[in-house]
């Protein structure tokens, strides 16, 4: 495949991710709206959100102006090396920024200067792996700053929360994080959680958990149960959409686990806003998009 074909396919992935939410997310937001009291501010907020989702899709414009951290996950087959992929993707990002699919959103932490292209140290955020498969798989998440700011990491035991080193302790941390976030992360939110790992790998895995669809099932039965319980309990807190109060505080919770050191027990929580922009595709060596991964 020519580099420019790859770049144009990746540009299309960025455009789609920025302007449309996956169906699994839209369905859960719709369910939330039906659950809210008619005429309430919660129902109103969710209706505006649903209108916005439809409008962004129709106009092919960013559904939120904060087009977020660009988190790129790719499984690279034998025919593609990392640097060739990253070059194409970075070029697609700069082009997407020029076309307005992405906001100029990357600032030098020392000088405060905006690069204007979304490129710079650590941007985009790449997570590249080799695969034995024939197709290139690319998954993209755009995660805004408001929700990133309310993420949290706990080190267990936490005496203030009464949280020990077990799933009961993990539950306490997660519910505390939802409460701390209130409406500030543009809820209703979706949580990606990692139990274990180190401080760095824990947060990375918590974001990877957001690659799952909302309607899937965790293969680990104890976590599947905890995920359901968290969503159900968080929705009794009464925080509601935008923190207006209401029954829809959390749309989903996805929990991963990593081994830890005997001395450490971290719970890392990434909060995703309702504008849960996630998309992905499979690309053949000839440059054909063979499958969209999230429909």
């Amino acid at each position, binding site marked *: 495949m020519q580099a420019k074909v790859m770049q144009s396919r990746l540009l299309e992935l960025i455009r789609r991710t920025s302007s449309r939410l996956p169906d699994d997310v839209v369905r859960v937001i719709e369910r939330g709206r039906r659950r809210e009291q008619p005429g309430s501010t919660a129902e109103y907020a969710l209706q505006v959100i649903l209108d916005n989702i439809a409008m962004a899709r129709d*106009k092919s414009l960013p559904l939120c102006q904060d087009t977020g951290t660009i988190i790129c996950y790719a499984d690279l087959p034998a025919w593609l090396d990392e640097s060739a992929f990253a070059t194409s993707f970075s070029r697609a990002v700069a082009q997407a920024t020029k076309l307005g699919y992405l906001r100029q959103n990357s600032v030098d932490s020392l000088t405060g200067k905006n690069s204007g292209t979304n490129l710079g140290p650590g941007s985009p955020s790449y997570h590249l792996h080799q695969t034995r498969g024939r197709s290139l798989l690319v998954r993209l998440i755009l995660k*805004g700053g408001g929700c990133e700011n309310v993420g949290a990491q706990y080190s267990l035991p936490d005496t203030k929360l009464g949280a020990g080193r077990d799933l009961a302790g993990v539950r306490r941390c997660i519910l505390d994080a939802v409460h701390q976030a209130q*409406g500030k992360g543009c809820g209703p939110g979706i949580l990606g959680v990692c139990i274990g790992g180190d401080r760095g790998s824990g947060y990375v895995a918590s974001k990877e958990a957001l690659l799952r669809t909302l309607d899937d099932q965790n293969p680990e039965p104890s976590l599947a149960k905890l995920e359901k319980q968290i969503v159900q309990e968080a929705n009794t807190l009464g925080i509601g959409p935008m*923190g207006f109060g209401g029954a829809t505080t959390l749309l989903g919770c996805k929990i991963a686990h990593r081994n830890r050191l005997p001395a450490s027990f971290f719970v890392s929580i990434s909060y995703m*806003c*309702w504008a849960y922009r996630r998309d992905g595709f499979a690309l053949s060596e000839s440059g054909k998009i063979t499958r969209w991964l999230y429909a």
Partner: protein
Amino acid sequence: MLLEAPFTEAKIRALAVGEMVEISGLVFTGRDAVHKYLHDGGKPPVDLTDSIIYHCGPVVVQEKGRWVVKAAGPTTSIREEPFQGPLMERYKIRGVIGKGGMGPKTLEYCQKVGGVYLHAIGGAAQVLAERVVAVEGVHLMEEFGSPEAIWEFRVERFPVVVTMDSHGRSLHRDVLAASQEALARLL
């Protein structure tokens, strides 16, 4: 309920927490740079008497010689907490649109001055951009750049929820307290 310019103290004092309001008239955008500038004594380039300030860094582009708003959702308001109240008092700013709510200091000034906090739907950049029907001017663009400038937006039926009013009520404070109790019951 419709809130139309001019945004007089009487109209603002009539608003109460929980009301869903649609704003029509002129609003001024202003975020971090503008608030700091005004707080430090900078001269306002527009008349802020009975005005509404919108915490928003919009995406605005020039098409055929005129400004067109491409995205105009709210930004997090709490960053302006140190400045907002005193500025409301000094210039008789009556309304603040943003997201996430503000703190006790702003709430106190809302009571004192006759002001209100109006919560827009975070992330709804397209719905909100559509309600900006005209851009009537831009100020401090050279100094602060496009997202931080003061944009004069003519809005029609711009949807917000009153979450802090001039009677000392804050929905944010209430929801925090109620959810704290609910959390304590769960834990």
